[in-house]
Structures are given as structure tokens and as C-alpha cells.
């Protein structure tokens, strides 16, 4: 396999965080409400991984190094895995596994609905991320996986609706999100400098 060590490095770097957080919670380093901290960190981790995934294509264009694309699918799947863990932590720590309440939340709370939609999009992309689906879907595969842009928007909206009083942190994420979309505009792509040979 090409880029074996690079792939392995990315795998370990992306997968290590939740273990580290659970360990921190275990030694009481996350304060009196570790569940809530885990929910928040996993949610933010999902968004960060999505953004990192969306960096791969522009980075490849910029540098010409094919290693970026080699880890793109893996990063996308990590993003999905974080989203699943975020959901599990929410169900366990916030709802206390009260399934009836989940139904209520899914009907009444816009930010929960938006989050659920984003997770659904990620699910669709995760199950079609294999070579077989790529071959079968052909050109439609690329179109389908543009859902990632929608997830970015949904994720930022989900985040915005959780903010209570200070938009500073959110603004930073939204700014990066906008930048990632701008570098995909065809007119901008052509003007981007190419550092590598690619």
C-alpha cells in the first residue's frame, strides 16, 4: 500500500483523542461534569475532522503531493465515527438514555434536528465510501459526496444554536468554513498558486 506509514500516522493521530479524553475524565481532570465535556469535545472534534478532510483536496492542489488524497477517505470516516460517539455521549450523559425524551427533542429542538440531518448525510457518505460504491455510482458518486459541504453548513448551524452568549469561538470555526468553501470556487481554484510539480 502506498503511503502506509503516513496513513498509519493519520489513523493514530485521529483516533487517539477520544481515548485521551476518557482517560482525563477517569482521573477527574475534566471537572465535575465530564459527560458534558465529552459531548462538547466529540462534537467539536467532528467539526474539526470535517474541516481537516475538506483541506485535503486544496492541499493536494497547492502542493501536488498525492499523500493528502490518500488519507482523505480515512479522515472522512473518522469524522463520521466522532459524530457517532458525539451522539452516543449525548444520549448517555445528557438524556440519560431516556428514549422517549429523544423523540421529543427530535421534534421540538431545531439544533437537534439539524444535528441529526448532518449525521444522516455523514452516514450516507460513510456507507458509499468503498471502491464498489464509487464504481457503481460513477459520476454521481462525486455529486453525492458534495454532501460534505452541506454537513459543514449544518454543523456550523448546530454549533451556532448551542452558543449562549459569546460568538468568538464560533466565528473562528465559521471563518475557516467559509475559507474552505471559497477555495473551491472554480475561479479561485485557477488562481491558486501551485507549489508542487503536480
Amino acid at each position, binding site marked *: 500500500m502506498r503511503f502506509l506509514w503516513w496513513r498509519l500516522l493519520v489513523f493514530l493521530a485521529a483516533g487517539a483523542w477520544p481515548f485521551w479524553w*476518557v482517560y482525563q*475524565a*477517569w*482521573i*477527574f481532570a475534566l*471537572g*465535575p*461534569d*465530564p*459527560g*458534558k465535556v465529552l459531548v462538547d469535545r466529540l462534537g467539536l472534534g467532528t467539526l474539526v475532522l470535517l474541516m481537516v478532510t475538506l483541506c485535503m483536496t486544496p492541499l493536494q492542489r497547492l502542493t501536488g503531493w498525492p499523500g493528502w488524497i490518500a488519507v482523505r477517505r480515512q479522515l472522512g470516516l473518522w469524522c463520521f465515527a466522532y459524530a457517532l460517539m458525539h451522539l452516543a455521549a449525548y444520549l*448517555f*450523559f*445528557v438524556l*440519560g438514555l*431516556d428514549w422517549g*425524551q429523544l423523540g*421529543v*427533542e427530535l421534534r*421540538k*429542538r431545531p*439544533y437537534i434536528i439539524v444535528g441529526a440531518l448532518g449525521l444522516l448525510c455523514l452516514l450516507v457518505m460513510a456507507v458509499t465510501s468503498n471502491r464498489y460504491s464509487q464504481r457503481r455510482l460513477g459520476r454521481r458518486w462525486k455529486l453525492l459526496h458534495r454532501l460534505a459541504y452541506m454537513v459543514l453548513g449544518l454543523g456550523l448551524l448546530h454549533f451556532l*444554536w*448551542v452558543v*449562549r*452568549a*459569546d*460568538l*468568538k469561538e464560533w*466565528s473562528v470555526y465559521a471563518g475557516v468554513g467559509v475559507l474552505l468553501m471559497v477555495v473551491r470556487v472554480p475561479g479561485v481554484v485557477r488562481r491558486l498558486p501551485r507549489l508542487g510539480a503536480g
Partner: protein
Amino acid sequence: MLIKLAKASDSKESEVTPHASYLSRRTLLGGSMLALAATGLPRLAAADPSLYADVDPGKAPTWFAKKLPNTQWQAVTVKGEAITPFKDATHYNNYYEFGTDKGDPAANAGALKTEPWSVVIDGEVAKPGRYALEDFMQPYQLQERIYRMRCVEAWSMVIPWLGFPLADLLKQVEPTSKARYIRFETLNDPAVMPGQRSDFALIQWPYVEGLRLDEAMHPLTILAVGMYGRELPNQNGAPLRLVVPWKYGFKGVKSIVRISLVSEQPTTTWQNIAPDEYGFFANVNPKVDHPRWTQARERRLPSGLFSPNVRDTQMFNGYEEEVASLYTGMDLRKNY
């Protein structure tokens, strides 16, 4: 005067979880680490051994140290509920003037200078004025009030406050017949409060809160100057804060510099930001949701990693018997 409140939410001293067993629980869980950390800290003053485990003794102002021995301990308690560890009550705070993360107040509030401190009393009162805190506190005996504290964000704690009934202050300053509400203001000092310097804050400083006069006169409503047998740590609203146990925590305005008696209902800070989410009354009510989350249940902190301490929220935070009569005939769904 000794106010004796024996109500349903009270309990005898024997019903409160003994400190000794509370301590042993902690020792079992993470005691070794904490003990290590505690022995590393220099003890500034050789204060009396605190009633509570692992309390940083702080550095009490002279007026506070003088009052403490005459404190009426456990004047109000809660039934069969463990008191939140001091470390959690002082390192998990909402005090947006010092930052929006729960750990920010503990990290940043050290810069707040609480001595000297003065409080302005104005508006519809016979005796307005600006008082130095030690003179302001002079008439009152401290009482310990162990109250549940329910945050609007659906977490809760049990905290032993030291303070005195707000009603006693109101008797001193003599509200006029026009006074119908009371308005509180927190310190506005961007130089020491990084949250007030943020360009992205939705809050208009200073922080403002208010109560209806009958709520302010209720014997459960106190102005607190201490907790866990010591003066208030800065991050908990030193040197003077409001505690209204049947309302969401954000009503408990911190580091008060101004108390005004007014005739019109004041607009509070959170009402200003999101009137559909935060009402003037903000009574704890499991049947009225926050638009973005349910208020039916709460996480009692500390909440464990493998046993989330989720419990049902009680009407008026368990003080229904004492305070429900204040709201007779009011639609609590509209007046949230």
C-alpha cells in the same frame, strides 16, 4: 432576630450526609491524587479547620473574620442530599465577565479586587447612599443556608452559603410606597473582566438582575458573602451576591455594586439577549422547557463518567411549599 424556617425542604442536621462519609467517598474515588495536590498548596492562614472537606481557607477580610464566629450554622438545610465538593463548586462556574468556559472564572477572577468594596443603594428608598461593604454588613448576623442550586443549563449542585436575608436589608433602607421591584447590578470593570472586553459577546454589560419586591422579601432569598464556611471565592461572586434557591442560577447576580428599588420591572441581562429563552421570573419549573432543551431533568454534579447523575427537576427546585403562594393565579408558562 432568629428566623426559624421548618418547612418540607428542611432537614435535621442528622439528615445531611455526614462530612466524614462524604470525605471517605472522595478518598475512594480520587483521594490520593487530590491529597497530593492539596499538600502541594501553601496554606496562607492557619484558619479553623473547616466544616467541609478540602476547602481552600482563602484570606478573609477583617469584617468577615469577625462575623464568622457568631454564624448561625445550618440555619436552613436540604434533606438527604450530599453537598457538592468545594473544588467543583469553585471550578465549574458561569460568570461570563470572566469568560464563557466553566473553568474561566476560577482561572481569571483572581485579578478582581474585592477590598475595598462599596455598594450603592438608590431608587425608591428612604435611606439611599453609598456604603463601604464592612459598614453595609455591620447590622447582620451570618446564617448558613444549604441550598440546591439549579442552573438553567440543566445541571445542579448543593451549596452551603453564608449570608443574611435580603428582607433584613430592605427593612434597613426602607423602600418607599412606590418601590415594587428590586434591581441589582454587577461590577463593570473591563480592565479585570476579560469577558467584558470580548467583541463577540452578546451581553450588554453590566449584568443586571431583578426581583419582584415580595420575592425579594421572601425569607429564603439571601445576599451571600461566603460559602463552605469561608468568604466567597472571587469566581463565585465575591464579595456580595444574590441567592434565590427556587430560581435558575443566573438570577443570582454576582459581585453586586448597586441595589436599586424601582417601580417598574427592570429588564434583565438575559431577557435582553433572548427574551423567548429567559424570562424575568426564571423560576425552576420542570414543565416549562427552555426552547433549546428540556428542563424536566438535571445533572447533579459531580456527575460520574459511568453513572451520569441525572435526576428529575423539582417544581420551584424543591421549595414549592415555601414559595408557590407568591405566584398564585399566575400562568407560569407565560411568566417563565
